């Protein structure tokens, strides 16, 4: 009797496992959420906690998919391998036709962030990005707003061609590492996400203390959570609701504190209008189909 039951369960499990990639059964398939260097995505303990929270709230498995570059995550969205993602605003603008906004996090109570131009703390002379002519400059990611688009837009705005301005540029593939590159004097300057820099200033003050913020850009809409167009409406609403309600329970608030966020609000495309404008003006539209 027991043996037959056991064999029966085995067969059922096997069938499920084989059918898994094709099945659309909501309870069995995990919700796949892409995470990018838009936040400190190397804090694995925190992410495990957050994942468990989302699973509990959604009542279904959640899988975080980590990638070190925005383009990887963007490709996964494009290929339908992600249901949702925490993207930078620049990729969002580029992928507008493929995704819809889920929610925008609140940083310091507001849904905005900036681009910080940082140099070594030992460099006391640099006043603006133009002073870094002929120096080594670190970008975070070619699809980062604050770490790539904003400084290049700034240069363009000042009538400087960003392509010849620096002696050498390189990508660190994360804002955090861009801070490190400057702190270790590998690069003379870098442009980083203000949210990341401020979070680091709390978590690793020794690192940020070795850098100096030269200029702060205008405010941009905070990197939003977006849902793939392929995500079912019910799932979209469920995820949106869970995010919006995070600040309403103790466990959620605790997580938000660790993420250095205050909560989520309804995302509106208007928040990202100035990014779209920059993309248009700077002509920095990569020759890729997103």
């Amino acid at each position: 009797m027991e043996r037959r039951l056991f064999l029966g369960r085995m067969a059922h499990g096997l069938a499920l496992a084989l059918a898994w990639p094709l099945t659309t059964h909501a309870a069995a398939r995990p919700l796949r959420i892409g995470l990018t260097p838009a936040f400190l995505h190397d804090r694995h303990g925190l992410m495990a906690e957050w994942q468990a929270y989302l699973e509990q709230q959604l009542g279904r498995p959640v899988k975080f998919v980590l990638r070190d570059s925005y383009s990887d995550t963007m490709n996964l969205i494009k290929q339908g391998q992600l249901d949702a993602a925490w993207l930078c605003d620049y990729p969002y603008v580029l992928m507008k036709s493929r995704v819809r906004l889920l929610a925008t996090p609140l940083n310091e109570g507001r849904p905005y962030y900036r681009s910080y131009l940082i140099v070594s703390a030992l460099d006391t002379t640099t006043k603006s990005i133009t002073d870094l002519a002929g120096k080594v400059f670190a970008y975070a990611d070619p699809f980062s707003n604050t770490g790539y688009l904003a400084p290049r837009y700034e240069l363009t705005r000042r009538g400087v061609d960003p392509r010849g301005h620096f002696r050498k540029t390189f990508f660190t593939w994360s804002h955090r590492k861009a801070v490190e590159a400057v702190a270790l004097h590998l690069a003379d300057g870098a442009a980083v996400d203000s949210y990341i820099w401020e979070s680091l200033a709390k978590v690793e003050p020794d690192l940020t203390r070795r850098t100096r913020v030269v200029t702060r850009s205008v405010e941009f809409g905070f990197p939003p959570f977006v849902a793939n167009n392929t995500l079912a409406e019910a799932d979209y609403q469920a995820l949106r609701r869970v995010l919006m309600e995070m600040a309403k329970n103790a466990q959620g608030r605790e997580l938000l504190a660790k993420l250095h966020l205050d909560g989520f609000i309804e995302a509106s495309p208007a928040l990202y209008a100035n990014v779209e404008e920059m993309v248009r003006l700077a002509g920095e539209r990569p020759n890729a189909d997103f």
Partner: protein
Amino acid sequence: MRIFDLSFRFKIPLWGSALIAVTALILSLSFVAQSYDDLKRDMLGGSESLGRTLVRTLYTTLLHDDTWRAFEIVNAPYQGGVRHGNFQAEGLIVLNGLHQVFVSSQPDTWPLLANMKQLGPAYAALDQRIGGARANDSVTLEAGGKILLAIPLVADGIVLGHLVLVHPADFYWPRFRALILRALAITALVLAVLLPINWYWGRRMAIPLVQLSRRMDELGRRLPEPLSASAYAYRDELGHLFRTYDRMLAELVEKEGLEQQMVKADRLAALGRLTAGIAHEINNPLGGLLTALDTLKRHGRHDPVLDRVVPLLERGLNQIKDIVAALLVEARIQSRALTRQDVDDVHTLLAQEVKKRAVAWEWHNGLEGTAELPATLVRQVLINLLLNAVQAAGRNGRVSARILATPGGLRIEVGNDGRCIPPELMEHLFEPFTGRNEEGHGLGLWITYQIIQQLHGRIDVDSREGWTRFVVELPEGEAPCLSVESA
């Protein structure tokens, strides 16, 4: 004093110690010198193999111009500011094809895109060496307090750049120092074990030699003491030398004893001849005088003066006769062979005297039957020795007499527990009038000696505290045919 004149007591241990120390030092030094080369080569080899591993991952970053990834790779060994275990390079530099710094572990020291020439003369020299080297060959250069090791980043025979491992010139020093300390500790340990052994062994060799040398030194002046048997108990050349020395010394002692005996015998013989001669010369007129006196007594007139003088003369002449007779020991062979009874008679004869003096005596007559020896003379010898012994033992003393038949002769042992004979007396013991005292004329031992000489025997005295013993050996059957006058 020169070092080579030192006593063996110091020289052997010192030489041994010096040899051991020099050997240990040379061994340690050669070991250290060998290790120095090995260590330097091994550590550079270790560095190169680590470098070759890094090169494989760095190659792609250079190809993709991925500065940050390259930095993460070269910076990995220095995470946390501490150099890891075996990784001895203090810094890593990746050079691009133009020999500029593509990335380095310490951008402060070796900034991005810096030319090798800007980094200092050592790097400039390396730059030239790299240019001349074949693809795939690493280049090592020691200059300016650094050891630089350049490993090319090669793919398909194309050199994309180089990985330069920068070592402080003394990067192997901490390990080398540990090695030296260990070598020193082992050397010290070896010396601590070997030196005391050497010292002990050296003295073990030297002390008997020194003793031997001292005794040889004494040899000319007096006979030295023999070496103690434990001084050197081995049967090697040294042991042989010591045994030979002891044998030589024993022979010398024996020879000296013999010489002394001979001198004594010669003296006694000369004395014998002299006394016999004198006695003989006195005897002849004495006979005449006594005869004349006799005649005077018998036929002389009575005269009050003569009556007073003649007995005086007679007593005086008789005393002279007695003494001359005693000095003239004549071994006339009118005697029969000695029997057991003759010996027992002596016992009986002296029993009274012994008793009078309250002397305890042990008597052993071992003679069975007869001995081919003149009974009168043997008895005379025995009586003389016993009387001497009884006198020497004194009141309540102890005397022992043993008469033994030996193969081919007779042995007489007479002992007493009286005072020992002083050495100065011992020297002239058998000479006439030597042992003179209130009880005898001092001729007893002289007569004894003369008799024994005539019987071709020998007499030995052994006198020590508490026991004095005379031993007489008489050969049987050698009848004396000469009187003492011609002895």
